[in-house]
């Protein structure tokens, strides 16, 4: 059901943990849906220098968190903002249709963490370009 890449990121998740005094934190999902992701970003000079996560969820949720934190590390905020759920899923060599919402959650987590940082900086939060219609998710709790 899962690609080898998903299984690798599930079994050896990168960047598990919290960042103390993180520059931005994104908490998404809810326990009723069976998925919660907390994304922690350390941001220096507009660049993400560290990214960590804690996730309650299925294999795809854990792998998506792991991959998303990998993908945004070292990126500028603008670049990180553009990391889409599709990019996360592709980097994982695909997700089953019923699990696509996990990659969406990861994208939302990153966005939320970035905007948390922007708010703390007194900046306008960025607006979702195309708020997820979740077209590509076969079913998705709470959407």
């Amino acid at each position, binding site marked *: 059901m899962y690609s080898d890449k998903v*299984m690798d990121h599930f*079994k050896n998740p990168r960047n598990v943990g919290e960042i103390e005094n993180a520059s931005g934190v994104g908490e998404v999902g809810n*326990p009723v849906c069976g998925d919660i992701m907390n994304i922690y970003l350390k941001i220096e000079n507009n660049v993400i220098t560290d990214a960590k996560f804690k996730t*309650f969820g299925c294999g795809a*949720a*854990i792998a998506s968190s792991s991959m998303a934190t990998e993908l945004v590390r070292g990126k500028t905020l603008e670049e990180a903002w553009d990391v889409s759920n599709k990019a996360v899923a592709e980097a994982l060599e695909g997700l089953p249709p*019923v699990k696509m919402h996990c990659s969406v959650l990861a994208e939302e987590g990153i966005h939320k963490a970035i905007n948390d940082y922007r708010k703390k900086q007194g900046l306008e939060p960025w607006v979702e370009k195309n708020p997820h219609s979740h077209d590509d998710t076969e079913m998705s*709790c709470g959407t």
Partner: protein
Amino acid sequence: MGATRIIYLDHSATTYVKPEVANAMAPYHTEHFGNPSSIYRIARDSKKAIDAARAQVAAALGAEPDEIYFTSGGSESDNWAIKGIAFANRKKGNHIITTAIEHHAVIHTCQYLEKQGFAVTYLPVDEFGLVSPAALEAAITEQTILVSIMYANNEIGTIEPIAELGAIARKHKIPFHTDAVQAVGNVAIDVKAQNIDLLSLSAHKFYGPKGVGALYIRKGTKIDTLIHGGGQERRRRAGTENIAGIVGLGKAIALATADIEGHNARIRALRDRLMQGILAKIPHARLNGHPEKRLPGNINISFEFIEGESILLWLDDEGICASTGSACTSGSLEPSHVLLATGLPVEISHGSLRLTLGDVNTDADVDFVLEVLPKVVTRLREMSPLYKGKDGGCNVQ
């Protein structure tokens, strides 16, 4: 992909076919392949084999052979029983009573009938998954034409008070169906003593082949046909008979019911050691289902702060086959309707694990799971945002 040894703990999802059963089936593919409806000798061999299997099933249930109808499995039996009774009695009434914890083969069938104009009452269950006979009695109306209550639950293993529930339906002259797919081989069944009018079973749950089952229909029960066509199964279920499958079902049910008590004692001893070990070793774990009135091989435990699928994936990596609930929903995102019906909060129901033991399991299997599972749970909790340390508070309780 670590493990090479497989520890199969998902016998409620399906069982392997026992070698005796596979051997009994083999000749009916290539040798005794005649169509039992035909007139010549080789076809009469097929007919005899089916008659023998029918007698085996009848004997296992305390029924008469001509009350047994072979089907393609538990789902077809459930669909046939429920739609067949509903459509045949439409003029009498439109009300069906079932429970909130049935298998989807019953629930989705009832939901379909709701779209066709029937009214369905889904009886609630208590925290252990038990249906109350008083609630059944209270739900019956003038319009009630069918009561369908499962014998034993496939997720939490709870065994319902079938004889008592059946007696209430009988008193009101309402046909009583029970989905006994998980019960056969684990509980001594006597359809007459237990007031059962229709009973569904499926061979692959008791070491028989997949794709074959049976429906017991008490003589005189008014029921429509589900699969129309040729005159097979005394004109009630059309289709060239799956002879090999039927022979396998007969053999498997005979083996499974030969010594239910002996079999259960062995399985229950293993199960209890595993269940108690898990509860002792892992904090924030809670047993679902009834402490005693449960299938001998069933364990269903919720682990707080973590999610079930990720537990399964780790166990699979260690060669342990398990499930979160019923097999057919393990790919789904919805929390178990059974656990919710017992009052378990949604967020905790997501972290449930079902282990179902069978004839292959050994003490070594139990030891291994008791070694592996606590590590898996710890690992997942450590990456869970809900878990604040062993004794710390947490935001879901």
